[in-house]
């Protein structure tokens, strides 16, 4: 029998090799992929997030845990699709136009995937129309915008305006983040939320998707 506690620990400790190996072993024994995710991987990532917020974990540890999570998820994803499992939500994420920084954005994308979201990562330096296109194409309900420079922060505003002009604004929750972004700025540009760090962003996205599905 695969020792699934090892999967939890591998994700928590950023041990990609073990995470993948245990997942393979479990799948060979017909383990339920949803159970692997919900009972072991998501709690492990939640613990990673907690440690990050308590400053026991920092960016490198977060990157390694996200990678271990991803490694395991890649094996599980085809099975999830077969089972017709619905993702927590559909996210389109990118760093806004003019800004090439992507470490923070990549982290948020990984943690969102780890949180069961279907993530479309548009990369860096993404013009507003690309966000619009991706939201339509992927039927997204969350848009995450990242910027690391105060000089590119205004592009967050223009991206939100582009979503408005395309008639998509009411369909999606817009979350913004990045080192220079503040809650005040988020409010000023009409975003729905601000994630102070990657772990907060994921919780926020989850809460918003939940709240909006209840509203319907």
């Amino acid at each position, binding site marked *: 029998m695969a020792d699934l506690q090892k999967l939890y620990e591998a994700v928590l400790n950023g041990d*990609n090799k073990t995470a993948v190996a245990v997942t393979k072993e479990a799948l060979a024994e017909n383990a339920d992929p949803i159970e692997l995710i919900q009972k072991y991987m998501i709690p492990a990532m939640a613990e990673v997030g907690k440690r990050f917020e308590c400053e026991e974990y920092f960016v*490198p540890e977060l*990157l*390694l845990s996200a990678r271990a999570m991803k490694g395991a998820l890649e094996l599980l994803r085809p099975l999830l699709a077969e089972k017709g499992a619905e993702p927590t939500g559909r996210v389109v994420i990118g760093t806004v136009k003019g800004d*090439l920084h*992507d470490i923070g954005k990549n982290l948020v994308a990984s943690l969102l995937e780890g949180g069961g979201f279907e993530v479309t990562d548009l990369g860096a*330096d993404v013009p507003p129309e690309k966000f619009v296109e991706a939201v339509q194409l992927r039927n997204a309900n969350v848009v995450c915008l990242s910027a690391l420079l*105060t*000089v590119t922060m205004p592009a967050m505003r223009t991206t939100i305006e582009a979503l408005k002009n395309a008639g998509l604004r009411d369909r999606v929750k817009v979350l913004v983040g990045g080192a220079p972004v503040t809650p005040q700025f988020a409010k000023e540009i009409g975003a729905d939320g601000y994630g102070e760090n990657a772990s907060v962003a994921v919780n926020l996205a989850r809460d918003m998707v939940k709240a909006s599905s209840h509203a319907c």
Partner: protein
Amino acid sequence: MRLKLIGCEVILRELSFVLSRSPHTIDAEFLPKGLHDLGGSKMRDRLQEVVDATDPQRYEAILLGYALCGNGALGLRARAIPLVIPRAHDCIALLMGSRRRYQEYFDANPGVYFRSTGWLERGRDLDQTTMQQTRSLTGAGYALQELVDKYGEENGRYLFEQLHTYRRHYQQLTYIETGLEPDGRFEEDARREAQEHGWRFTKILGDFQLFERLVDGDWDPDHFLVVPPGYAIGVSYDEQIVRLEEAPE
């Protein structure tokens, strides 16, 4: 006027040059470039310490040789004497002499990495503890070998790649020449760096306009924010970049 300048060492050469020609008497204190990497409120707290340690009886105002710097100046409070800060996002705009020139350049040249003498010669020499803290928080500044030692061969390599991918998105290195360089060594370093990364190399001329106005006391509101006692530096999210924010004691 007797003024105090608190500036970043990354523009030490440029500020020293304009200081030498200022009509005013100015004491200068330069802080490590590493504050930039600490970022946000941590940088602000350090600046505030230096502002607070300035004798208000001795000076009429404190000049900041800084820009908004990724919100590193956000929330900085004037105590008994005013603070003066240029309206600019960062030191690249300061070196270019205007935030408008910077914005135009930025819009027309995506994916540019900037270099100037200060960016080439100044390290991240905060004291060791702070340095360690910055690096473990962000992972920035680690050499490959250090990451390998700390996280193992495979993980270390992965982290190094992840932490440096953004550099792959850059296409050009723009070297800002000010005319204060002793010889061609800085340009050579910048050219070498561009070549190593496969970036185009371009050189533009810096402009001392903002530096001069700052130390000459020519603080017109279009280019500077003067923060009187009881106020702090706020961010305006528009072309003005910074604004006053009430900050009662």
